[in-house]
């Protein structure tokens, strides 16, 4: 079914472009594929992560992505070892099986909290690492069966996504049958493996099929692959089939992204309501709430779909960091839902260059390494060529830090400026209030003279003088001799301020 969908997309694309262009765009360009998949993961994650962030459940994504690892490994082992079937990581069956495992473990921990024996933070810090640990142990035990490197568990292999493709034949798609008396079948005798094992050429156990162009019926893609191994199958004048190679992860992640998007669009109203409901937002304490479990199920599916690209640990960044950055930039839910994916997509598309040492095209990490090499000595190895997914995460962190510092409303700079301004305003009101309180009292002479004000307000002389200067320029106070007096307009201003204070 997935293949049919891919075929449909390709047919649509073919109206505007050629098969070679499509191949050049994805299958032959690890960079493009990685950017597209990264962007799809970032969009999916940001859409869901926004709601989890608002419900104060951001760490649930951490929990789910950890437990999903175990789901993936167990499902995989069950299918390959017990059912003895071939399988790969983008299979929908694996997707749903593991996602259920993810949601199931959320149920499980929920039960653990409710037993009252373990505090919530401890349960989160315990149950999910435990499931993750079992996953890691299984992988290191059965590494051959699960086709997984233990390192891939935490970083993924987004750079290799372009080579895991489905091939779609467009022209000359007739299978080629090679009979034993076909001259091309000469290659049968080349394949010593098959002969020694007494295997029928098309036997699925014949692991070396692409190395031995032996007799049997070939699908066009097998024929082309055999030719690529140097075994002539097509005549020179024969038309070779044309193929579009389509990375599997694109389809899967695209579908997941659409699923998440339509979920958010369809249930926008309900999601918005629950996101801001304080009672429901109480950290992990969710009630049996269908919408939430659907949300968590989608988080699980996204985590599974993203697993072979970015691994089980780094995927958390795609859920949490862009929404957190967006949260610093805006108050509106719909704006968060727009900004968070944009940040995610920006980070993934620039992250891939950072992995090769190019930071936003303005700064070269290699230069930095060269400089550092001179200072501390890096053994002369100054080529920054690192994990792509980790670099994408680093770009997200960078975006977060930028938002943190420079956000017009909640940024550090804006807050500092506002605080400085309010602090001044505040001090002025305090002084006015002090004058007002002691206005008609006997102690006024003592309380409100320029010389005693610093002592009574616990401020420095300099500070008091500066504030008095400001207030005088606005005619809210006046000075008679040593005495500081409130004017009528100053009094009005103060009373207005106090009224606002009580009504906050």
């Amino acid at each position, binding site marked *: 079914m997935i293949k049919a969908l891919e075929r449909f997309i390709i047919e649509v694309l073919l109206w505007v472009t050629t098969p070679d262009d499509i191949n050049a765009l994805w299958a032959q360009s690890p960079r493009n594929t990685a950017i597209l998949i990264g962007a799809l993961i970032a969009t999916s994650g940001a859409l869901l992560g926004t709601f989890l962030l608002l419900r104060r459940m951001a760490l649930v994504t951490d929990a789910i992505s950890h437990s999903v690892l175990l789901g993936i490994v167990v499902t995989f082992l069950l299918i390959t070892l017990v059912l003895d079937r071939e399988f790969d990581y983008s299979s929908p069956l694996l997707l749903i099986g593991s996602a259920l495992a993810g949601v199931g473990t959320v149920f499980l921990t929920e039960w653990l909290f409710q037993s009252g024996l373990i505090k919530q933070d*401890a349960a989160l810090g315990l149950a999910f*690492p435990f499931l993750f640990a079992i996953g890691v142990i299984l992988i290191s*035990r059965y590494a051959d069966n699960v086709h997984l490197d233990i390192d891939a568990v935490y970083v993924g292999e987004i750079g290799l996504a372009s080579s895991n493709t489905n091939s779609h034949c467009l022209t000359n798609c007739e299978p080629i049958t090679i009979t034993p008396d076909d001259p091309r079948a000469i290659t049968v005798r080349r394949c010593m493996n098959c002969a020694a094992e007494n295997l029928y050429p098309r036997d699925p156990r014949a692991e070396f099929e692409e190395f031995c162009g032996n007799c049997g019926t070939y699908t066009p893609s097998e024929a082309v692959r055999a030719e690529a191994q140097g075994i002539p199958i097509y005549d020179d004048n024969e038309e070779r089939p044309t193929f579009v190679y389509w990375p599997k992860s694109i389809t899967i992640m695209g579908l997941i992204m659409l699923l998440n998007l339509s979920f958010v669009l369809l249930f926008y109203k309900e999601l918005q309501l629950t996101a801001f409901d304080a009672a429901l937002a109480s950290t992990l304490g969710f009630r049996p709430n269908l919408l939430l479990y659907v949300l968590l199920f989608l988080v699980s599916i996204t985590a599974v779909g993203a697993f072979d690209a970015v691994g089980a640990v*780094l995927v958390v960044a795609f859920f949490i960091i862009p929404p957190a950055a967006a949260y610093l930039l805006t108050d509106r839910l719909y704006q968060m839902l727009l900004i968070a994916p944009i940040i995610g997509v920006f980070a993934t598309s620039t992250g891939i260059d950072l992995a090769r040492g190019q930071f936003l095209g303005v700064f070269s990490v290699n230069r930095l390494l060269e400089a550092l090499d001179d200072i501390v000595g890096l053994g002369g190895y100054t080529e920054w060529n690192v994990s792509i997914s980790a670099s994408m995460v680093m770009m997200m962190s960078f975006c977060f830090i930028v938002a943190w510092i420079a956000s017009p409303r909640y940024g550090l700079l804006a807050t500092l400026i506002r605080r400085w301004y309010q602090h001044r305003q505040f001090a002025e009101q305090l002084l006015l209030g002090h004058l007002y309180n002691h206005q008609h009292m006997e102690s006024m002479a003592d309380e409100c003279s320029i010389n005693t004000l610093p002592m009574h307000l616990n401020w420095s002389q300099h500070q008091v003088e500066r504030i008095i200067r400001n207030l005088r320029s606005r005619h809210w106070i006046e000075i008679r001799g040593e005495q500081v007096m409130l004017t009528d307009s100053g009094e009005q201003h103060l009373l207005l301020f106090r009224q606002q204070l009580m009504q906050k």
Partner: protein
Amino acid sequence: MMWYSDRRFWGIVAFTLFLNIAFIPFSSWVLNAEYQYTLRIVTVGGALLGIVSGILGSFAVLRQQSLIGDTVAHAALPGVAIAFLIAGRALEWLLVGAAIAGWVGVWMLNAILRTTRIKQDAAMGVVLVSWFGFGVALLSYIQRRPDAGQAGIDKFIFGQAAAIVRQDVNLIAIVGAFIVLILLLFWKELKLITFDYEFAAVNGFRVRILDTLLATLIVIAIVLGLQLAGVILMVGLLIAPSVAARQWTNHLEQMTILSALFGAFAGTVGAVISALDVGLPTGPLIIVVAFGVVLLSITFAPSRGVIWASWQQRRDRRRFAAQNILQDVYRYGQSHHDFQKPVETAFLIGLRGRTAQAGLHQLEKQGFVKRLDDASWVLTHEGLQKAQNFEESQQLWETYHLYREALDLPDVQQEHHANIHDVLAPEFIQRLERLQKGDTNDQSA
């Protein structure tokens, strides 16, 4: 009774110690482990780390900061990598790097919480995964370096017990002893800020300094364990032993000792199994063992454990069910002024739900109600008496609670369904009865 004069506690300690020691002959028998030099080092290292992190874990768990430990552990990774780039594979420097990075991670977490409106969960997520991502990038840079000197640095992700050498164990022992010493010295203060931070502040303790001290100790414990348990799963060795220990005791002192022993057990077992099979990373094994201890504890621990609780709940439910039904039948008769009037089962089910059936059967067995036909019941003589007694007891309880203070009655910690005659001395009950009969004005007399 002080915490150390508790027989049950010392029993558990002895049992855990026995398990710790018995594991060595057991493993050499089942796993064919030969306790050569290397394996001995690994055993001692695992045990020491377990003790240190178990002790500090108690405080992390009780201050509900387990996840901050997780953040520190993840944040330490770039520190390890940078220290490696600068100073090479010397453990001391890797740990210094890890500690600095862990500290900066905590600082960043606090800075986000202080200066933005992002809540703790998201802030931890951001810090944790940002630093981890940075660490992974540095790690992949190191791994792609052509020189072969980087061997083993990637083991910091999941931990590798087999890589531990004599000097490492010495380091762990010295730093661990230092940590324990500080804890003993400031035990009173740390206990106070963990339980009631504000009260500590009002009493003139420098809470900020204590806070920083405790956080530093936790960071050091985590960092010490990184080589063994790895950045991703170190948090398990920190908190699992304490969570397990909490189930067995109600004293901080006992909890900390048990936690140390559980930690030693998890550390040793995990490290030894992993050292025997190089393919298995240590961190995950430790977690699995530690979580096993937690599961056993929450299942079997007396008074808190799941089995205990469910047993008690069932007992209570049965007892209440019978008593409630008896009361229902009694009140039914009372309201009809006829205690011989049969009550239909359906009516009782309507009142009490499914427990009605079980309650009725129990009452029938005890001879308090009689079955008239399939669907109706009536009180027996004994049942009537019992119900009247209970009703009377209930009313006395109410009076007791209203006037306990005024009549200067002893404060008894009993639940309402107990018969008051079993709890209060007769002279007090007489006073209550007098109060009930007379006017409430008696109260002032």
